[in-house]
């Protein structure tokens, strides 16, 4: 088994070897390591992408709109960096659609890290594959195979508002149960055991 440290190092060097700067290479090393830690096939995807990287003219997007469409296909590295670097302002768009991206799984860690720095969960849909990105702590997904995703026609990104995913009723019931750990207080107990003064007018 390759260690995650080896994965980080080899991907960083490979990315530099493909002509990206050292700073970008550092990002991709960390991202692919993260994909592998989450059980997603990062090495497989970056290796395949680098094989075709010089054959086609992949595009970047320096300014994001609600809907983004390239002439050819977006580069998941350049687009990922651009997305991550502008994520604090992009979140105001709430829902973003990106068409035509090569090897979109490489784009995913940038969105996951954006979830961390914006403090919002992000729902990412790559064609029919769904990912819930939880503050870069975990990924919940229906993509369980390790098949290579060479191209995506439509990618949807939704910044989710911070709200609880349980009802007020659930909360009240649990709160009531938790109160069973408290001691019923009598006047005498109040006088004898309270830490602060019972009146604060002195």
């Amino acid at each position: 088994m390759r260690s995650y440290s080896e994965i980080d190092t080899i991907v960083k060097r490979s990315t530099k070897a493909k002509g990206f700067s050292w700073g970008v290479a550092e990002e991709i090393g960390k991202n692919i390591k993260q994909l592998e830690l989450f059980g997603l096939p990062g090495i497989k995807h970056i290796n395949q992408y680098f094989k075709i990287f010089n054959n086609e003219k992949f595009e970047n997007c320096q300014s994001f709109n609600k809907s983004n469409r390239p002439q050819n296909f977006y580069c998941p590295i350049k687009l990922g960096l651009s997305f991550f670097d502008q994520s604090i302002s992009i979140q105001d768009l709430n829902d973003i659609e990106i068409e035509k991206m090569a090897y979109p799984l490489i784009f995913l860690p940038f969105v996951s890290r954006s979830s961390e720095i914006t403090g919002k969960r992000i729902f990412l849909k790559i064609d029919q594959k769904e990912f819930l990105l939880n503050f870069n702590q975990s990924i919940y997904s229906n993509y369980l195979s390790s098949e290579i995703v060479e191209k995506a026609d439509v990618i949807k990104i939704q910044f989710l508002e911070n709200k609880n995913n349980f009802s007020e009723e659930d909360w009240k019931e649990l709160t009531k149960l938790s109160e069973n750990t408290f001691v019923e207080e009598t006047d005498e107990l109040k006088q004898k055991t309270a830490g602060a003064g019972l009146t604060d007018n002195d």
Partner: protein
Amino acid sequence: MQVPLRDPKIVMKLSRLGSFHQSKLSFLRSFLNEFKDWKYNRDLFDLNDRGYGVAIYSFSKDKKTYSLVCFANELKDEERSDRVIATKWDAAFALYDGIPSKIDIDRLSQNVPKQEVGRLSYKELTLSRANRSVRAFNYVVECLSKGIQPNTNELSKVGYLYRTTAVYGSGKFGLADRFRIKNRDEINGPFRLEMMLVYLVRQFTFDQVNHIAKHKNPKDAVELDLDICRNLGIGNSTGLGMAPFIVNHPSLLNNWILAKETALKKIREIEKVSDEEFKIFYNCLTKSLKNVTSWNTDSEYQKKKINNLINDLQNLINYLKDNIDKSNFYIFDKLYNWAEENLSEEGIEYLVSIMMEPYNEIIDPLISQMSSDEDISFNIPIDRTINDLREIIEKNYSDILKIDFSKNENNKKFWFISKNKEEPRIGDRFEDNGSELEQPTAIARDIKKLYETIFTLKNSLKIGKFLVRNNDLRHIVRRVFITEKYPYSEIQDNTIGSKLVPIDMLRLKLSFFGAVKFDPRSDKWLRICMFQGAPLPNELNSFNQYWIYN
């Protein structure tokens, strides 16, 4: 009284970093303290008459065990090389997480002796190899087999029986990643398991000479005297690999230096030094004269530094006798201020190390702060502005900005990774091939380039927006924001200038390991000694913590 931390622009200069010495903060000393109540055992010693075979040593406590698996191999003299290009060694070692099974030992026997071309697993924590000091090893075997102890003067010229030529950890060659072990209580300082490996290798070297001598002359052979064992350490040959490490791990570097600086600050702030504390300090100081005078090297560069240090120590002792009244307040602050005015950098840093000796209560809490979770500082703060970036550069890199990189002398060297060994090297940009594949270790030059790029940009421009068009500067933008949080994270010098002495960078790291007797063999590699004078494994539950000055 409040004493400020020392200025990073002074402490982080290479000449100062290259004058650092071991101290109570050093990793090998904190390792011994951490494992002093662990049970040591030699679990297996299956060597043939000539000393080749397998041995296993362990430390265990409660349900945890760490096992050093040793493979001693036959090596022809012409095959023995300390250089990183070697492919065979006298012995190879792996530290196993737990108790290895027969299957594990078989697997390790196929891989550990191959080192970089073998494969390890997440069950192995560190990996190393070592070569005999042929002169010392054969001499000791010869003496013991004749029933006599070796001459200690002869042995002190070397100081060890084996020297390691590399110690690997943290995921290299399939070893366990650091995240798997970092939360263990006993691993609360950097390089702790590397230190354990080296320490147990030292014991293996004693057992091996005894074993060979015994089989050479079963009737008359004696075992190596324990006092002589204690005064032998483990050598290490260190090349350039360590130099980029300290550039590539800025927050870790910061935490090492910050611990040292915090200790110094707190000691200088001590109002009244007790008699007992002063006695410990003074004893270590006077005893260390013996250590320094037995520091052998052929390097003219190091000889000069040692002579300066010996003069400094004499001056320091005289100053203490004539000018320091123990009953006065803040005597360590007074002493430090005098040293800054009167001693060389070697002397100043030696004093700093010795001043730590009486103060466990200051040092011990700092040791657990010397590791670093580097992922925390990886993300660039994209919402900050160009004005923020510029202000940090002007504050933290003012000396760097004065360097003129249009002059060849300031741009002469480049760091690269060799293809055949994947090891760092340093070349001449104007003479050697490969500078187009330069590693990102020319921090000073890149800082200057970044500063010039942002000079005319709008103050309010967000970093995220700046990076969209300037990804070539991404690595250096990240560093600038790291230095904002970690003031001692950056070497305040030019790492590609013609005057660069790379061994200064090695010495910085080795001093934190606890190495002594730095012996430069060129400006690019050196030999050192570790654990010389240290207690033996079965003495760990009660040992003199000032052993390094004995």
